[in-house]
């Protein structure tokens, strides 16, 4: 393992020379996958004002994206079970590389760059072994596969950089799937979702598991606060009508906090968190539920729900300068500030699950 660690450390130190930056291309604020009116899939770039700046074709339905920290370069991930991740030069709209999973693996739809942009990490399924994997790609070598390590659980989905220490935090959703059976869930009776905190070479630094009565609450999506608090959103796989928390906060070394557990309005989420995001200062965290058609905003210190917005088929969510920006499957881009919802744009297309902020 030492050799691999040294190899990775070398890659991280080498860094990546800045090419054209995000600011150079006219400052898109967000990326989102989508589906156009003609049925074609794309990755779109949105301005802070909700305008669609450009869109780049994708061969199939996308899910999330990862933006390079400095270069105007993004990786658009296919919806799981993903067979591609397209690296796109956002200055020209051209595809720089297509990542394809190795034999026996598929992508889950999320990934993240290392802080210096030299490596890309992707969540993957080693499906014959029912084992979650984090794939490593060497950006400077043209996104060459550079290795992989265990994700610390089954079904890794979203993944973020830690802010309190170098490393990754992975949402292992706990649900086993196999491409032979599509998206069918194979182990609902013995799920064990977790949050795994991993070093960049795959050493487990910390682990959060839920109490047994919440073992069917799949941890899926993440947001990271500046102080290193991980916000996570869950999707309940137990009986419909069971009343369970959907949003949690965790910081290694501190107790888990589940938000809104005693607020009846958590039922409006229909047991399903689609995306979540901290506000810029980290004083609030919001979750979307396309199934419930709501966005719920919680105050992070008290854990109380501060606002609820009813928006049909809402899912994408990201912090913006005035609060939150949300997107919907009916093409809306909305700004949420306090109790108000401001319509920024109505596009004749469908925005997919995630709205990815560009730093």
């Amino acid at each position, binding site marked *: 393992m030492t050799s691999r660690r040294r190899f990775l450390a070398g890659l991280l130190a080498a860094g990546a020379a800045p090419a054209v930056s995000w600011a150079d291309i006219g400052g898109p604020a967000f990326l989102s996958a989508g*589906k156009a009116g003609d049925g074609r899939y794309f990755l779109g770039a949105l301005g802070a004002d909700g305008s669609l700046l450009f869109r780049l074709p994708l061969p199939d339905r996308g*899910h999330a994206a990862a933006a390079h920290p400095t270069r105007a370069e993004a990786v658009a991930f296919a*919806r*799981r079970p993903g067979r591609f991740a397209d690296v796109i030069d956002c200055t020209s709209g051209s595809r720089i590389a297509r990542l394809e999973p190795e034999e026996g693996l598929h992508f889950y*739809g999320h990934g993240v760059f290392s802080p210096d942009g030299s490596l890309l990490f992707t969540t993957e399924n080693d499906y014959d072994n029912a084992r979650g994997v984090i794939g490593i790609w060497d950006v400077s070598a043209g996104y060459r596969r550079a290795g992989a390590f265990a994700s610390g659980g089954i079904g890794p*989905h979203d993944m973020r950089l830690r802010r309190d220490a170098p490393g990754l935090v992975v949402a292992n959703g706990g649900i086993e799937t196999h491409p032979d059976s599509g*998206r069918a869930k194979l182990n609902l009776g013995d799920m064990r979702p977790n949050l795994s905190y991993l070093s960049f070479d795959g050493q487990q630094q910390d682990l959060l598991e839920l109490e047994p009565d919440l073992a069917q609450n799949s941890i*899926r999506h993440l947001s990271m606060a500046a102080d290193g608090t991980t916000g996570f959103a869950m*999707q309940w796989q137990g*009986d*419909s*009508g*069971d*009343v369970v928390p959907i949003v949690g906060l965790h910081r290694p070394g501190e107790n888990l906090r589940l938000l809104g557990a005693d607020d*009846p*309005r958590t*039922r409006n989420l229909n047991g*399903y968190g*689609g995306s979540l995001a901290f506000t810029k200062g980290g004083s609030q965290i919001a979750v979307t539920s*396309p*199934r419930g*058609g709501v966005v719920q905003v919680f105050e992070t210190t008290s854990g109380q729900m501060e606002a609820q917005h*009813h928006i*049909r*088929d*809402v*899912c994408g969510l990201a912090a913006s300068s005035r609060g939150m920006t949300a997107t*919907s*499957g*009916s093409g809306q881009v909305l700004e949420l500030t306090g109790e108000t919802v401001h*319509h920024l744009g109505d596009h004749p297309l*469908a*925005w*997919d*699950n995630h709205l990815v902020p560009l730093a």
Partner: protein
Amino acid sequence: MLRSFFLALPLALSPLIAQADATGGIADGLILPLMADLAGSGAALSTAAEADCSPESSDLQAAFHDALDAWVRVSHLRFGPTETDNRAFSLAFWPDSRSKTPKALSAMIAKENPAVAEPASFDEVSIAAQGYYALEFMLFDPAYTELGNAAYRCALVQAQSAGIADKTAAIHHEWVNSFAAEMRDPATRYRNSEEVTQELFKSLLTGLQMTADMRLGRPLGTFERPRPKRAEAYRSGRSLRHVVLTLESLNDLARALAAQDPDVAGSLEAQFDKTLQRAANLHDPVFAGVADPATRFRVEALQQDVLDLHLMAEQQLGPALGVEAGFNSLDGD
């Protein structure tokens, strides 16, 4: 010539105008009378509890059934006035997967919590101890009809009934004084009549989903582990009744929404008829049959009929109304 041109114009625009009129008409013609019944039956329940708070009182039991019937008929209309101040949740805390209602009631009775004396203080107690489902425990569950002090139980029943009267009156008041107008002439809350149609269509789908997943799905559980004690309002023998009342109410809503499209209206009507007929033939008021393999399939068949209705509404009525199925809500990822 000119005259006939102007006469023809409204006909050319008729589908859109008719749909806008239809949605406004649903608020006035369908929803307001149901909300009036909700408030009227809530007030009558409180009056009956004041007159005789005994669980054996046939007047009180009848008032309870009337009031809960009225709630079930509007239970899918979960937007606007029912959501203000969490009114719907404090009227109807169900499903109760963590048994909060019996726990909250036991605690109140054991401590003789004085909040029952004042409506304003009762409004602040756990919502699990308020509303129709908590009152059902006090009137129909033998573990609660005899628990603790009789005078306290009486005060609790009266406080629950008064709370139901207050909240249903507030819902009705808001519908009459502002919300019906927002649906009739969309301006702020809804930007246009399409958004009003979407809201009503969503409540139709929600009602069908809730019926299949909760009212039928929760007692069905799995074949290996049926859960008859999860049936809604089984203590008062009302589980199947809730399915029937909901379907009747949803049928009215679906008929109104589909008014512009006779083909869709016809197929929905036929499926509602089939489903209601199956419910009428079930003769199993609390779904006790889910635990018996010989009768379980009949409840499963009813659930399948409701799921078929949901699919039909989504795939036929949705497009007819210009409402597409949710790109993200159907995705699951």
